[in-house]
């Protein structure tokens, strides 16, 4: 179905974006694991959504065209993944 199709496409786009990040964030190796962690915590329905596909394809093409703004696009993607996260931090009870 289209959901499965988006999921596979999103995985492929995410991998491409991560590859680009690996090449350009060498001075901060913690960035890529952080991004992958955010993706792991995102809701499965969001990971298979057209919204994520649109954002991934936009940040990927922009990052390729303007590598000097890579962190802007990483931040944008992290914020979006965080907004669709399954796990939220619960404040500790006193």
């Amino acid at each position, binding site marked *: 179905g289209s959901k499965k199709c988006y999921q596979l496409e999103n995985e492929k786009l995410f991998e491409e974006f991560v590859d680009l990040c690996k090449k350009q964030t060498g001075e901060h190796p913690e960035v890529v694991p952080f991004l992958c962690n955010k993706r792991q915590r995102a809701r499965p329905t969001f990971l298979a959504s057209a919204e994520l596909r649109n954002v991934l394809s936009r940040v990927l093409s922009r990052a390729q065209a*303007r590598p000097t*703004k890579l962190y802007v696009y990483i*931040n944008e993607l992290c914020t979006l993944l965080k907004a669709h996260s399954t796990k939220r931090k619960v404040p500790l009870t006193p």
Partner: protein
Amino acid sequence: DPVNVDDDEDEDDPENRIAKKMLLEEIQANITTD
């Protein structure tokens, strides 16, 4: 004669610098709290 324009003018993009700072701070905060 054509002027030689520096292609690295975006090397220190202010928006990118702010985004990088925010991201690294968030990563650091996560490491500290985990």
